[in-house]
């Protein structure tokens, strides 16, 4: 009897590819396949030559780059020494997620498809090119492609006699079962961040609990935007970085939202629980302590402020005790209902918590063990580091704008991480922020005489502040900065710092204040006005030009 096994491997940056991979996993289960769904870098690639059926789900991010959780795999795949017939046993298909407004649209999926073909794999279908630019998002491409894929796969691996595809009406088991510990168990200490012995350099799985040293507003109180210069103490973390690098910060939900969520779902925040995988071989979620409290799960793990996806409504419909709600939830999960869903959720940026509020009869009936299937985990946010280790050792500073905007929903939309960080104050006890550092895309010249032209309007100036601090500490004077903002008196960040450096001869500064006069003046106008100097720097000085914003 042929084994019905399917492996789904994904590379996901924001969670969309992961969500799609999970969807394929569920559809596979309904067709009586044993299915594994894994991130590419978590999969032991030595086994790939033995696999018979694999679906790759890969997003393209940055400038045509693979997501972080498939970077190692990517470097392996393109090794020249891999023999051409390696994957001759493999039937495969590639589903790509990308955005056609970028020049390198879905490059990762396209290259992956061709490379696996080159290595002897047999493609079941042409590569799917999901596109964020479509009115209905990537699903416009994914839905029909998956139908075709299942036709191909079932032709190769027909359903065993007597078995049908498990109907949509039947609910699949959750990934984990949740076991409450008895109420009188002792409470765990601390939360996410245990002050353990120092280990290797901090990363996503082992963030560093940084103390917040200062949190200063750098825009005038009357200015519409709240921008902060925030400083963290990283003494003893082992973190090093250079200008252009990026700090990843793991945010958490605000107490009001956590409380509201627990009330809606009738959960007791203080109860402790452990998780057990339903299928052997599934690993437990990283970053979740065992045992854990409901409070911790909802505060640090479940992303209740994210915009819910189609899979959320699909799963939710199984718990509904109310016909009206169930019909609406099923509508939102159908291919025909995607327009409605986009209008209800995506366009106004409705949060998961707000959606739950709209379906009260369903929400109060959600079994807790389905929470991790229903709601994704909170993703870290990236910020350009705005300081240099040479100027401020053991410190990381960031320049952060608090995200706040209006959609047609009455309550304004807020950025999860920026709102949380803005709410913290060093005076309030021991405030700790989980963070780690990632290499950035910008590299500044090693040669001390190469001048640098930096164009950074608004908070785009953050990495340049780091670069300038670093270069000044190294005695390098070839620094030219074009900075733009709205008004000199309102959002000219770091004004005093720049003016000091200009006085000392370390910085040539050009500013463009767009709203200080009748006509709009932007950085590009200043570049145009000073074109002779810019040309000089480029032609005689071999200057490097950097742009951020």
């Amino acid at each position, binding site marked *: 009897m042929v084994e019905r096994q399917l492996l789904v491997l994904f590379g996901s940056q924001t969670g969309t590819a992961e969500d799609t991979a999970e969807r394929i996993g569920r559809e596979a289960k309904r067709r009586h396949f044993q299915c594994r769904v894994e991130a590419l870098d978590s999969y032991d690639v*030595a086994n790939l030559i033995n696999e018979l059926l694999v679906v790759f789900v890969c997003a393209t991010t940055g400038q045509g780059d693979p997501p972080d959780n498939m970077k190692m795999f990517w470097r392996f795949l393109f090794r020249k*020494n891999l023999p051409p017939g*390696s994957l*001759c046993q493999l039937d495969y298909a590639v589903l790509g997620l990308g955005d*056609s407004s970028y020049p390198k*649209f879905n490059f990762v999926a396209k290259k992956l498809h061709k490379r696996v073909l080159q290595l002897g794999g047999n493609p079941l279908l042409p590569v799917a090119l999901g596109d964020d630019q*479509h009115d209905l998002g990537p699903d416009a491409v994914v839905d029909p492609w998956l139908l075709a894929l299942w036709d191909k796969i079932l032709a190769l691996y027909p359903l065993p006699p007597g078995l049908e595809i498990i109907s949509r009406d039947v609910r699949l088991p959750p990934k984990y079962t949740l076991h409450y510990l008895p109420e009188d168990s002792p409470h765990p200490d601390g939360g996410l961040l245990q002050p353990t012995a120092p280990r290797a350099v901090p990363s996503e799985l082992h963030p560093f609990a940084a103390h917040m040293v200062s949190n200063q507003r750098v825009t005038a109180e009357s200015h519409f935007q709240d921008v902060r210069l925030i400083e963290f103490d990283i003494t003893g973390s082992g973190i090093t970085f250079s200008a252009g690098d990026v700090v990843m910060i793991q945010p958490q939900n605000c107490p009001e939202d956590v409380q509201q969520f627990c009330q809606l779902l009738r959960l007791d925040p203080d109860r402790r629980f452990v998780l057990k995988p339903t299928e052997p071989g599934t690993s437990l979620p990283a970053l979740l302590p065992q045992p854990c409290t409901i409070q911790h799960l909802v505060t640090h793990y479940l992303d209740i402020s994210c915009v819910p996806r189609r899979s959320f409504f699909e799963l939710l419909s199984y718990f509904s005790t109310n016909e009206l709600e169930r019909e609406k939830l099923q509508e939102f999960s159908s291919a025909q209902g995607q327009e409605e869903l986009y209008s209800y959720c995506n366009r106004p940026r409705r949060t998961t918590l707000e959606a739950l509020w*709209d379906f009260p009869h369903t929400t109060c009936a959600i079994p807790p063990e389905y929470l991790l299937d229903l709601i994704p985990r909170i993703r870290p946010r990236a910020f350009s580091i705005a300081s240099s280790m040479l100027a401020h050792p053991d410190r990381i500073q960031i320049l952060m704008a608090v995200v706040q905007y209006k959609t*047609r929903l009455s309550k304004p939309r807020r950025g999860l991480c920026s709102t949380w960080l803005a709410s913290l104050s060093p005076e309030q006890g021991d405030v700790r922020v989980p963070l780690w550092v990632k290499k950035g895309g910008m590299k500044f010249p090693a040669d001390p005489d190469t001048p640098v032209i930096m164009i950074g309007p608004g908070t785009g100036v953050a990495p340049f502040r780091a670069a300038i601090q670093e270069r000044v500490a190294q005695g390098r004077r070839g620094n030219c900065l074009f900075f733009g903002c709205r008004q000199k008196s309102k959002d000219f960040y770091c004004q005093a710092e720049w003016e000091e450096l200009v006085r000392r001869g370390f910085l040539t500064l050009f500013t463009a204040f767009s709203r200080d006069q009748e006509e709009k003046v932007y950085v590009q106008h200043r570049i145009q006005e000073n074109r002779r100097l810019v040309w000089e720097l480029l032609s005689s000085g071999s200057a490097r030009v950097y742009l951020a914003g």
Partner: protein
Amino acid sequence: MGEYGIAPGQRVAIVWDSSSPVEALKDLVDKIQALVGPDNRVSVENINQLSQSAHRESSFDVVLSGVVAGSTAQHSAEVLAEIARILKPGGRVLLKEPVVTESGNNSGIKTAAKLPTALTLSGLVEVKELQKEALTPEEAQSVQEHLGYQGNDLLIVQIEGRKPNFEVGSSSQLKLSFAKRPGPSGKPSVDPATAKLWTLSANDMNDEEMDLLDSDELLDSEDLKKPDPSSLRAPSCKELGKKKACKNCTCGLAEELEQEKRSSQPKSACGNCYLGDAFRCASCPYLGMPAFKPGEKILLKENQLHDA
């Protein structure tokens, strides 16, 4: 099926040259036109003008050339290629041409063997000689006039060919298998040496010194293309302003839609407004607000009473 195997509705091209008597040509055209029906399905072309007419490729089901009685038309490689071009895939050409039976003359007339070859070289397949006839005295006379040939070893050959069933530019994947014997699962099994190389490499994941291919080289011009913007639009992307009544609408919108009467004000005492945005109709003044409990008094703020 009519004469020459032409069916009604087909598009036919009739090619002639100056050797074809005008009356006979006219008869032929009329006959064919009667067969295929109206709507300009018959095109008539002089053999020397054929290329210049630049008919659209793959537009004809049948081409008849030199079939007019008395024709001594000769088909050059260029003409045959053009005929192949304008034929639809699977379409048929029927032509007649005088040939010599003995080779070694320099009259420009093809030998009997050369004619089928000429058709094949132009890309036509299923080339069949249908008929070989000796010339009538009139035809012999015509050949002498038009082609200047005096010999008496001529024959008129009727020959047909077809355009292959695929379009120029179509492609199909070659099934190349570097012949590994299938394993028990019916699939080729991996060569042990290959497997070893792969495994060795995989166990050395952290080696940064490995030589890498340039992945950009895998992409071709097709990959660099962006999707057509019109393909990105949803068929009927309705914005918030669409009118759709709630399931058990009590606010009157359902009736309004049926009778197409304009009501002056949306009623705010709608029984379903307390449900969230997912259930509210497009004219509900509570749009944008969360669901609330029935009976709860909600005071709309000033700015919410105006249209969004």
